[in-house]
């Protein structure tokens, strides 16, 4: 794509979320209540899109953040690593309203890292001998058994950064970095909101 070095700072959440459409797979940063892109999470609801697949570590915590997407009924599927006390997800999983896929946390993030790095699948020792390996290919390499996990690409990533510039470079603060930087690499588009509320950056991370 030519001309991608345009100014990526966008004045409004609505404009930043213009690429979001029905049925997309959206990767959302944040671990617990840290690093959640709250303004963008609200913006997706206001955009009125539906049938989304959400990839997130917790998919909402204590009724906050992504729990708003659960209540808004805009999700078809959630891929996460930990539900914990997220009662709204427990309820919707039990009723069949939302399909839930649970991955070990390291496998979840490596699936996204792999997608961003152009690796379609990888062997990992995590989950061998457990329910996680059911239905998946396994292989013994140098005397140890591994399970084959597939890359997990997304259509768009929503993250919260500490500082953003007009080129789309982001800085994160402390452990708020954890999920967001992993999430930006596999998405065809990444949208970040910085802690400065007037500044939104949309940056394409496609190679």
């Amino acid at each position: 794509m030519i001309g991608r070095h345009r100014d990526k700072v966008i004045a409004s959440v609505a404009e930043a979320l213009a690429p979001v459409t029905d049925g997309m797979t959206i990767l959302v940063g944040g671990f617990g209540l840290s690093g959640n892109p709250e303004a963008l999470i609200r913006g997706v609801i206001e955009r009125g899109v539906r049938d989304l697949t959400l990839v997130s570590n917790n998919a909402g915590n204590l009724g906050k953040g992504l729990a708003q997407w659960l209540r808004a009924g805009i999700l078809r599927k959630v891929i996460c690593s930990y539900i914990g006390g997220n009662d709204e997800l427990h309820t919707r999983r039990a009723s069949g309203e939302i399909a839930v896929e649970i991955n070990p946390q390291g496998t979840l993030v490596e699936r996204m890292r792999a997608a961003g790095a152009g690796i379609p699948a990888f062997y990992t020792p995590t989950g061998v001998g457990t329910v996680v390996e059911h239905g998946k290919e396994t292989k013994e390499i140098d005397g140890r058994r591994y399970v084959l996990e597939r890359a997990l690409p997304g259509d768009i990533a929503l993250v919260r950064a500490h500082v953003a510039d007009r080129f789309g470079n982001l800085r994160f603060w402390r452990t708020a970095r954890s999920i967001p930087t992993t999430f930006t690499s596999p998405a065809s588009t990444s949208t970040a909101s910085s802690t400065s509320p007037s500044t939104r950056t949309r940056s394409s991370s496609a190679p």
Partner: protein
Amino acid sequence: MSSSPSTPVIPWSSEDMARRAAREIPAGAVVNLGIGLPTQVADYLPVGHAWLHSENGLLGMGPFPFEGDEDPNLINAGKQTVTILPGGSTFDSAASFAMIRGGHVDLAILGAMQVSATGDLANWAVPGGKVMGIGGAMDLASGCRHVIAMMQHVTKKQEHKLVSACDYPLTAARVVSLVITDLGVFEPSGDGFRVVELAPGVTRDYAQARTGAPLG
């Protein structure tokens, strides 16, 4: 070794268990302390004795902050605010789990529901119970060089938790090298558990009656 029937059994408190677990941590080790009971182990480590790793992306974790000094963007895997020591670092989740999976974390001390004589660990789901999720449990259990399990010796209903074979869903197979309970310290030996240490007043017979595999 027998003791008179009048010797009172004094099971270890969670503080005793944490203090005992801290003794298993060599100076300079990279250690991940699981959520719950294992988090308390940090209270019995001199600050800077070991490099504490938190799987959300922190190495060199310090004590809990004083009131007013909390940073909501500096948290541990249990989502509690923490501090970072000089020389500590933060990194993204993919790097954090590469450290774990790649064997760069020397030791994980993890809570457990069941541990088998062969070292199988079950700590993420109760059969028929609500599925809470896996989080970092499977990566830590299968990736760290050594795994120590910390748990009460039996359930509240007096069911065995040290067993011949786990009937709870496994977290990882053949990974636990030591189990610390309120009754003592036990080492999975394949067909049973070797008694390493017993809490005050706990006899081998007392522990055996509460263990679902032979004690050696």
